[in-house]
């Protein structure tokens, strides 16, 4: 069975940051589809530098639990995992699949996969998130969906990933309207109600973990609350629209399947056990306020 290492950011300050990595690892272990599932972190332990030596197999599938291609996936992870011969995926910014490299540290073969955030199956996770937050498995008709990202200021590819999924979901004709919105560029999430005619709008931030952006900035910017510390209603009424704010998409249990898909696309023989009905997120994961 294949061995999986899930590379995530982690945090020195916020325990919620590494939670998706731990929880998806737990889900994937429970499927029995992998021999070992080991999370690794940039800010926590095991650190990227030391994670490979904790997994005793010669061949490893390394999946970045990141939203987009960019600084972390292209510079930090290959450098810290000591992947010899890394020269980038051939990618237009959202199309990375995998590169097979050798780890200098351990001589293991590493199939370095594209980030979860740009996988096609991520569109399904966004939709699942909309279902979870509204409690309606058929949500869509007459409902607006906003996919929210940082914008280009930090990383051009992160905006690409947001638009990519918004376009794909729009093409399915399931939701009344679909928009890509951003924190630091137009169209801005602050003006969310200007961009939708539907009275119900589901807002799904394309972020891996809940933290400062998803639990403080975005809710305040959209006017869900004046002070994030006091929390907000789901749905909350803003300018006559009902806003269903989902919190970080990365906490959705279905994301575990995207991690597995990434490994499978890189050649991992992932068995069928993965195809069991995944759990759905409960209301408690929607907001930690």
């Amino acid at each position, binding site marked *: 069975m294949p061995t999986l290492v899930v590379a995530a950011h982690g945090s020195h300050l916020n325990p919620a940051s590494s939670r998706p990595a731990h929880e998806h690892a*737990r889900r994937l272990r429970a499927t029995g589809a992998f021999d070992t599932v080991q999370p690794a972190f940039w800010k926590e*332990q095991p*650190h990227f530098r*030391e994670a490979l*030596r904790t997994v005793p197999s010669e061949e490893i599938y390394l999946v970045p639990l990141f939203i987009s291609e960019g600084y972390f996936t292209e510079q*930090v992870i290959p450098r810290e995992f000591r992947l010899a011969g890394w020269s980038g995926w051939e990618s237009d910014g959202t199309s990375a699949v995998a590169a097979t490299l050798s780890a200098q540290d351990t001589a293991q073969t590493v199939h370095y996969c594209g980030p979860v955030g740009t996988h096609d199956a991520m569109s399904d996770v966004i939709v699942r998130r909309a279902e979870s937050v509204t409690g309606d498995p058929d949500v869509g008709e007459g409902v607006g969906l906003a996919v929210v990202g940082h914008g280009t200021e930090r990383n051009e590819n992160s905006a690409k990933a947001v638009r990519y999924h918004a376009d794909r979901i729009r093409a399915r004709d399931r939701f009344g309207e679909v928009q890509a919105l951003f924190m630091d560029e137009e169209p801005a999430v602050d003006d969310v109600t200007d961009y939708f005619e539907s009275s119900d709008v589901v807002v799904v931030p394309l972020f891996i973990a809940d933290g400062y952006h998803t639990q403080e900035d975005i809710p305040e910017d959209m006017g869900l609350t004046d002070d994030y510390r006091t929390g907000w209603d789901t749905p909350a009424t803003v300018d006559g629209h009902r806003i269903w704010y989902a919190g970080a998409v990365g906490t959705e249990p279905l994301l575990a399947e995207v991690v597995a898909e990434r490994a499978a696309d890189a050649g991992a023989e992932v068995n069928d056990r993965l195809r069991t009905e995944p759990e759905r997120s409960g209301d408690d994961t929607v907001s930690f306020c």
Partner: protein
Amino acid sequence: MDRDPVEALAKAAADGVEFDGLSARLDGERLHVATEGSTTTVAADGTLADLPAPLAASVTNWFYWDAIAPEQSAGRAFLRWLEGASEGEQSTVPERYDALETGVSREWGQLLLTARLADQGTRRYEVRHVDDQDVPISELAVKTALDDATAIARRDDRDRYRPLKTAPTLPRGWVFPDLGPDAVLSIVGELYPATIENWYREREGDLDVTHYREAAQRQTGRYQSVSELPSEALEWAAEACCVDPECLKRREWDETEDEVLDVPRGDGSFPCREPCSLFVAAAKEWTSLEDEATRTYEIELTPSERDQLEAIVDAVADGQTDQIREADLGAGANRYRARYLRAKRFEGDASGAFEMADGSDPSEEHTTE
């Protein structure tokens, strides 16, 4: 146990077996088994019951390490170390079994690990906080899953997030009472990631140490500046972060291979092979603070107030503030004393607070990011 250990041994003995003082050789249908002081021959399809007790112990011991314990070198070496079976340790298998009957314990950071003998030589392992050594199991929360270890490692006894897993702040009150060999390695790996692997590399003489200057050189983006941290400040930084009261790893990195830091390395069982991410983040802060030039200030304090400032710095640096009782007004870092000092010296009219010796405004000239 599916197979009888004797049956398994007979199979392996075709090529000869030498392990922990046991030798076994297959001669047609006869299996010759010997340890120091005891020899016997049994039928190749015999069972454990055919062997005298000391030999049976050596055979189940072989079976455990051959068929049940993990093959992976670091984990295996760790489990052998745990029960005092490392190379160079002279105990015989019967002596080891005697000890394992009651349980053999070792400390690993703040963990107390105990190996015990179970059925037919199988080992079972217990993990608990070392300070819970004498607490009855009935008073501890019984844990079984890897997730439990993830949760334990996340917060300290004051429910504060632990960004550094090897900080000596592991919470108490739990026990993993009955783990198999693979599970105990996973639990230790979750509580103290990569410590077993690095300990093993060190024992084998191939720990890959990355010293500060090299680690700093590698940093990019927001952390690029850390290569400018002055040598003297690096000493202070290691004293702030890496000593035993702050981190249980034993620091093996220095400024460079030739420029050794004076700060004690610590007595931990497992090595630190390069500055961790928390250290690098702290170094970034100190690099920018070290950019500021010093100035001379003038402040009027009584001798007791001077001592009190020192006591406050000590109490904060040693994490002692919440141990100072509310009404312990004799302690310099007592909250009322600190509030009194602030009211007297640091509030209101600037005349009481620090003044630049040259009379200029101390709030100017801050290097801010």
